[in-house]
């Protein structure tokens, strides 16, 4: 309350006049110990105080009142507004000019300081507003991107579910039609319809298994059953499974002698090899060679690679092909329809990384084709060779 009174406009003038009178009274009481210079300095200080606190006009009032008091109480003849000595006139005028100038300068400096402070506060407010707006916009953009991604993923998933479902439904209804009203469907056609249903059901099942596997990997719930396994056997299991898809290719296997056994989830690693061989067969021409190699890399790693003689993957896509549902044709030709579910490499990467390994893509040895390489740590116990393990 007291503060708000002092902040009122008229308070400055009242304080200006009163402070000068009070100061004059105090100076008068201790009059025997002060000279004119001390009085003028004290009054000047008061003017500066008023200017700083209440601004230029109260300071001007304080200057005039101070000049009058200085003249009346301290310059001879005392008790009058007349001045006897010329030098006292000069002192009084100098006092007045100094008081007014100092008061105005001080008030202006105070005003500037206040303006600067207010400017700083305004900048801070604007900055905070901008930051909030930016955060809101970033959040909205992130949400939008996330929604867009979800929608793209949903599109990819529904397409992959719907396509085999369409073939199955068309086949089933053709067969049903034949039962309801016999049409010219020969035995061969009937078998073909059933084959389509069989193959497309497998395709759906494969896709759904892939989705489940991906979901597990993304949730960090991939349960690895690590055991000491032999690299030859892991690769051999994958190749046996891949035989139907590699029957038109030449498969070369190059496994380094005396490779140590590795502590991995054999089934999962075999799945990685199978995926890479499956991709190699899909993206290279019939009759070409698929090379599978396994060797030791340093003391702690096993490096495996699957290489084909296809068109290769452009450098700019070599990271993206590991993204889920990303499907590219190997030579980057967008006019060709990508094949596969877009999940194989994402799952392979998940499995390799769950083993603390790394997977990447490079060009084949002859500069063409694709070579997918992955490493796996041998294991966290003493390295043993297969012969030692058998003992």
């Amino acid at each position, binding site marked *: 309350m007291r503060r708000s009174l002092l902040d009122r406009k008229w308070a400055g003038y009242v304080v200006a006049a009163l402070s000068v009178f009070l100061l004059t009274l105090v100076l008068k009481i201790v009059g025997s110990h002060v000279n004119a210079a001390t009085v003028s300095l004290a009054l000047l200080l008061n003017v500066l105080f008023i200017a700083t606190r209440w601004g230029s006009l109260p300071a001007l009032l304080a200057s005039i009142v101070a000049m009058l008091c200085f003249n009346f109480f301290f310059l001879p003849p005392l008790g009058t507004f007349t001045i006897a000595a010329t030098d006292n006139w000069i002192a009084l005028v100098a006092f007045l000019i100094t008081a007014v100038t100092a008061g105005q300068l001080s008030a202006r400096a105070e005003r500037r300081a206040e303006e600067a402070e207010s400017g700083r506060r305004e900048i801070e407010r604007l900055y905070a507003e901008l930051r909030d707006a930016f955060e809101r916009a970033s959040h909205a953009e992130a949400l939008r991107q996330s929604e867009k991604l979800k929608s793209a993923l949903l599109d990819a998933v529904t397409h992959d579910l719907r396509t085999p479902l*369409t073939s199955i439904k068309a086949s089933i209804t053709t067969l049903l*039609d034949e039962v309801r009203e016999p049409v010219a469907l020969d035995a061969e056609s009937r078998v073909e319809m059933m084959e389509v249903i069989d193959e497309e059901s497998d395709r759906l099942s494969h896709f759904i298994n892939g989705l489940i596997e991906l979901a597990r990997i993304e949730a960090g719930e991939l349960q690895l059953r690590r055991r000491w396994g032999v690299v030859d056997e892991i690769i051999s299991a994958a190749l046996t499974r891949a035989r139907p898809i590699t029957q038109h290719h030449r498969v070369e296997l190059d496994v380094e002698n005396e490779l140590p056994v590795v502590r991995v989830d054999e089934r999962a690693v075999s799945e990685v090899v199978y995926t890479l061989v499956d991709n190699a067969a899909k993206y290279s021409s019939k009759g070409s060679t698929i090379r599978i190699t396994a060797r030791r890399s340093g003391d702690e790693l096993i490096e495996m690679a699957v290489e084909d003689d296809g068109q290769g993957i452009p450098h700019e896509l070599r990271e993206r092909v590991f993204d889920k549902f990303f499907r590219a044709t190997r030579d980057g030709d967008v006019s060709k329809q990508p094949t596969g579910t877009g999940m194989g490499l994402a799952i392979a990467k998940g499995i390799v990384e769950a083993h603390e390994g790394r997977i990447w893509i490079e060009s084949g040895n002859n500069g063409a084709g694709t070579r997918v390489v992955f490493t796996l740590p041998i294991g966290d116990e003493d390295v043993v060779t297969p012969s030692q393990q058998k003992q």
Partner: protein
Amino acid sequence: MTDQPRILVVDDEPQLTRVLRTGLKSRGYDVRAAADGLAGFEAFNDWHPDLVITDLAMPNVDGLELCRRLRAISQVPIIVLSAKGEEKTKVEALDLGADDFVTKPFGIDELLARVRASLRRANAPASSETTQSIFDSGDFHVDLDSREITVRGKPIHLTPKEFDLLVYFIKRPGKVLTHRTLLAALWGGNYVEQNEYLRVFVGNLRKKIESDSASPRYILTEPWIGYRFDPGQ
């Protein structure tokens, strides 16, 4: 050379073309398949099919581009295969000249019905589009020359626009007509976004000619796409 109607199936899914080839052949159609729009267009030029069934999403030349190219040289009926959620592309295909669509997954019966309807329309263009001046559905009777219409024996009044809309439907029985196509034909190119015009006029027309306008029998709605006139014969 056979007298079986020829159907060209264009789809990049080999399993689906296998099924469609067998299913359609069993119903007496001569079928060829192509794996993309480009191969489909070439097959069309070589083989001159009576009807084309095409997927929309395909490599090289997609279904939309195939519709555009086919319409530039031929009036062959085109049925597009589309998925739920592809309404925009479906409408685009119909606007480009496709005659009908089937939504995946579909039963072979549904496809066969669309094939028969499209072939029937294609084989009888002269009677329905140019010369026939009387239309009788059983429920209502329209004289295109005198612009008179009777519904269940009673003469009724249609506004000029309602009459034009009805005639437009009658001349294109069974064909899916997009909002844009109807608006452009009856109101002009500046009104192709004014779907509410159609809703109002189709609503009025249904009240006047349908026995139950809430469950229309003749002017059927294709949700998000447009309307289809079923002559009911």
